[in-house]
């Protein structure tokens, strides 16, 4: 079972249905035990960083997610959910994140359109199980803030929007996608499918 973590932010319908179409059982849940027992988890999110962290703290989900990530089972943050994985965000004041990955969430700065909204092309930076059977292509972004990584090694894919923008991150069992895979056509569904297939097997199996 895939736990889609529900903390009252944003619309979980599209991502849930995408998981269902890919043939995985899922549960939209805020229950600690259900999340800890899941084979994989997705942390979605639309809205403001500070509000989201407040919700996660008020509901105790912050601790649950940190514990879950420590268990070694796969975790995928989508859009705001990816940003929440990082150290800190400057969206409407400084807010601490889950700090599962080191980095800062900062606003786009420059003389160009914000939000970065629309289809933009992924550039892969390293091999990843998420990219199995995939070529670089366009995915759908909607965001005004972006992640500045502290460690280049966490960058799996970027896109170009008046400079390099972090698009997919990954370290061990923790992954994030800044764009919406559930709104990104075939490529998005394949990325999601590749992530979900990681949730099926234990991570440390000796062949």
């Amino acid at each position, binding site marked *: 079972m895939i736990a889609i973590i529900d903390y009252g932010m944003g619309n979980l*319908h*599209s991502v849930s249905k995408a998981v*269902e179409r890919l043939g995985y059982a899922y549960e939209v849940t805020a229950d600690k035990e259900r999340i800890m027992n899941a084979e994989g988890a997705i942390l979605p999110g639309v809205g403001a960083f500070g509000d989201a962290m407040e919700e996660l703290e008020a509901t105790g989900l912050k601790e649950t997610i940190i514990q879950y990530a420590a268990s070694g089972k796969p975790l995928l943050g989508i859009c705001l959910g990816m940003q929440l994985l990082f150290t800190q965000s400057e969206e409407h004041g400084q807010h601490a994140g889950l700090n599962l990955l080191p980095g800062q969430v900062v606003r786009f700065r420059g003389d160009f359109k914000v*939000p970065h*909204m629309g289809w*933009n092309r992924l550039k892969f930076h390293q091999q990843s199980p998420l990219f199995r059977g995939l070529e670089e292509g366009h995915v*759908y972004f909607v965001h005004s803030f972006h992640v500045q990584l502290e460690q280049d090694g966490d960058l799996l894919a970027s896109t170009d929007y008046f400079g390099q923008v972090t698009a997919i991150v990954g370290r061990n069992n923790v992954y994030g996608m800044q764009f*919406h895979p559930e*709104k990104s056509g075939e490529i998005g569904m394949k990325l999601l499918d590749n992530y979900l297939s990681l949730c099926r097997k234990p991570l440390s199996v000796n062949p």
Partner: protein
Amino acid sequence: MLAKRIIPCLDVKDGRVVKGVNFVNLRDAGDPVELAAIYDKENADELVFLDISASSEGRATMIEVVRETAGEISIPFTVGGGISSVDHMKNLLRAGADKIGINTAAVLNPQLVSDGARKFGSQCIVVAVDAKYNEAWGEWEVYTHGGRKPAGIRALEWVRKMEQLGAGELLLTSMDADGTKDGFDISLTRAVADLVSIPVIASGGAGNSGHFYEVFTAGGADAGLAATIFHYKELTIQGVKEDLLKKGVEIR
């Protein structure tokens, strides 16, 4: 760089697609969910549903259509038509719509745009502007009620005001070009695109893939929208995209 978007538009009345759609292998030519799924497969970048239901029952049905569509497709979609309250927006967004299109209601109550943007974010708010050239003014005038009523508002002033109020995108329909298949209204689109720094979706007049090229280059549009020519297979989305790609336009 962002890819230019090709967007088919479906008119829906009481939960059924109107203005016939001429696809083969269609189980039900009036089913908006099935059509949306087909356009997703045909590589549309986004979809627009225009709800032309006149009754509240028809509008309630639209929520169901949205919920089902969101479960079937993997591209973003906008719902517009008759949306005049923040609650109504919330219901459609909760059901899975990505963006809300506001037209007449924005003219009657511009604050709806700012209220919606504040509550859901600018990226959710698409202001639809129907514009027609007014000879006496020597510029374009805004129309409401599906293009039936002149609003007495200058379109170029209007689009700036909408941007200031928090519109995330403009869906700009040229009533002069609409239905002609002679091409988008390049001068209108260019005038608007030069004035605002939010994306402009050009609509009205598409007849061939060259028209999309023109509106993306000379017109400065970020997206091109069409209905009949796609529904009747006079053009395919993939065909338009292949032509654009050959001419060096970034598409997905």
